[in-house]
Structure formats: structure tokens, C-alpha cells
């Protein structure tokens, strides 16, 4: 006990120091370590989650861009096909129109020819009749006599056959 006193050990002080440390321990445990560690853990979880999210986002981006490429390719092909078809269609249509025009023109020409022929025949017939009349009057005048129908016929035949 003498040595303890010489070293300054006093049970009251011992207890006081112990209590002091215990108070510090409990206060820090509840108000410092727990909130701090919880906070750190939550944050590291958040960071992990964020990194994971970033990874999935990157993957999705790659996926989406690939899909986009595919869709674009498809669209391009479709467009090409559409254009080709339209071109073909247009060609066909213009050909048909040409043909139709040609046919119409041909028909018109044919009709024109026919009508011309008819006209000519008619004109010829008219001319023939008129000439015959003229000849008859001329003959009458020359012959001074009425040509009857038999004589007339005879004369006409003789004239035209000459």
C-alpha cells in the first residue's frame, strides 16, 4: 500500500479516471462511431449502386445503339425497295401511256384515211355526174337536138370509152 501511495495511486482518482473514460466511451459510441460508420457504409453502398447503375447504363447504351443501327439498316433497305418499286411502277405506267397514245394516234390516222377515201369517192361520183350533165348539155347544144335516154346512153358510152 505504501508503494501505491508513492506512485500516486488513489482509488478515488482511479475511479474518477475510469468513469471519465467510460463516459467518453459511451458518448462517442452512440454519438460518434455509430452515426459515422452508418454514414460511411450508406455512402459506400450508394457509390457501389451508382457504379452498378453506370455499368448497366453503358450496356444499355451499347444495346440501344446497336438496335438503332439495325433499325436504320432495315429502314434504309425498305426505302431502297420502295424507291425501286416506285421507279418500276412509274416506268410501266409511262410505257402504258405511250402505248395507249400510239394506239389512239393509229386509230385516228386510220379513221382519217377512211374518211378521206370516202370523200374522194363521193367527190369522184359528184364530179362524174356533173361532167355527165355538162357533156349532155354540151351535146344538146352541139347536136341541137334532144337526146333521148337511149341515145344519151349510147353517146355517153361512146364518149367515155374513147
Amino acid at each position: 500500500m505504501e508503494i501505491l501511495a508513492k506512485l500516486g495511486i488513489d482509488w478515488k482518482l482511479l475511479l474518477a479516471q475510469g468513469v471519465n473514460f467510460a463516459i467518453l466511451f459511451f458518448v462517442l459510441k452512440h454519438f460518434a462511431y455509430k452515426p459515422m460508420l452508418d454514414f460511411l457504409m450508406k455512402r459506400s453502398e450508394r457509390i457501389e449502386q451508382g457504379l452498378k447503375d453506370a455499368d448497366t447504363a453503358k450496356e444499355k447504351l451499347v444495346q440501344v445503339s446497336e438496335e438503332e443501327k439495325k433499325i436504320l439498316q432495315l429502314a434504309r433497305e425498305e426505302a431502297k425497295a420502295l424507291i425501286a418499286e416506285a421507279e418500276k411502277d412509274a416506268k410501266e405506267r409511262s410505257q402504258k401511256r405511250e402505248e395507249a397514245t400510239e394506239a389512239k394516234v393509229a386509230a385516228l390516222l386510220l379513221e382519217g384515211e377512211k374518211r378521206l377515201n370516202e370523200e374522194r369517192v363521193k367527190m369522184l361520183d359528184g364530179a362524174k355526174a356533173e361532167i355527165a350533165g355538162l357533156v349532155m348539155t354540151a351535146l344538146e347544144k352541139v347536136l341541137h337536138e334532144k337526146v333521148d335516154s337511149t341515145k344519151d346512153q349510147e353517146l355517153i358510152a361512146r364518149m367515155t370509152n374513147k
Partner: protein
Amino acid sequence: MEISIAAEKLFTLGALPITNALLIGGIVSGLLMIVFTRLMTRLQEVPKGLQNVVEVVFEALLDLIQNVTQDKKQALQFFPLIATIFLFVLFSNWAGLLPGLGTVGIYGEHNGHHTIIPFLRSTSADLNFTLALSVMVVLVVQFTGIAALGITKYAGKFFVSPLHKPYVIGTFVGVLELISEVGKTISFTFRLFGNVFAGEVLLTVMLHLVPYILPLPFLFLEVFVGVIQAVVFAMLTLVFLKMATVEIEH
């Protein structure tokens, strides 16, 4: 120049004599509580200033504890005690290095001499504190061991029947283990006290020999010693805790 192994009494509060070491212990723990609780109320997602430092220290400490225990749950269980020991011992060691410590005080009578009784003295340079802390740590170690293994298994570490395999040797080792538990207390007590007290004495002597420049390297040395002793105390506590929770294999 007065060097006293015992902490000097400043005044008495009721029946409790307030020594300078107890005073600084109270101040250090009070400051720690204030700083930490205030810091916790304004934790920020993006740390700044002090929060950064605290985060780094806590994470490093937790990592270290986890490395020793190899068990996350156990690491979290041991963390508060280890961290408190580390912080309190560290800052009370460093408190002994503040200028004015050991020289500013009340003029009074101590051990029959008229001398200056310094206001402040490192808490670790008082056997009352180191002994109290050691006893608490050793008790916590025992309880942790009992809680982890159960009382019979834990007691089996110390009381080994002489009729089994290693026979008398096992019994003898058990008794030695029991003695070493008491030894732990004493070595804990005097290691911390010795280092810090010696440092203070060294600084005082140097200061009296050459007041300028010369004490500086020793001051740096004492800063270093303060960290080392805090780490040693905390690490030994950690190792003892871990050892207490591990079953010994026969």
C-alpha cells in the same frame, strides 16, 4: 524543477481530489465529445475539412481491425473500444506537449516543498488513468471471451485438467495464462505511463538545460511517441480481444 511521479493535486471537489492529470483528462474527453457530436450533426455527402480527416482515420482503423479479426461483425463490435482508446490516449499524450504544460500552475506546497503545481499534466502520465484503463480493458477482454465462447469453454483456457493429453504441462500452462492476464494489466499500465512520463521528464530536463532550439527534436520525438503508444495500446487491446474470442486447440 520538480519531478513527481504522482499527479499533483490542484484542489478538492467534495471528497474527490482534483489532480492536474484528471483535469486534463476531463478537458480532453470533453473536447473529443464536443468535436465529434458537433461533427456528426453536420455530416456531408461530400466531405470537407475535419470530416475528411475523421473519415480517413475511422476507415483506416476499421480496416486494420477487420484485418486482425477477419470478421466484419466482430470488427464493428470491437471498433468503439479500440477507437476510443486510440483517440483518448493519443490526445492525452499530445496534451502533455502543449507549451505551458508543466510550467503554468498554482504556486503551492507539494511534498513539503514550495513549488509551482502545473495546471496541466498529460493524463497518460498518471498511473491512476493508465491503471484504470488497463483494468477496464482486461475486464472487457474477459467478458468478451466469456460472451463469445461461453463460460465453461473460456474457463477451460485457464483450468486444464491434469488427467488429459498434455497432462501436467497443460495445467501448468493454464495457470501461466491466468497469471499473464494479471500481467497484461500491469504491463499495460506501466508501458503507457512509463513512455509518456519519461517523455515529459525528458522535455522538462531539456527545457531547463537549453530553453531554445534543443528541445525541438525531443518535442518531435514525443509527438511520435504519443502516436506510437496510442497505437500500441489500441492494438494490444484488439489482439487480446481477438485472442479471447478464439478457441484454443488442444
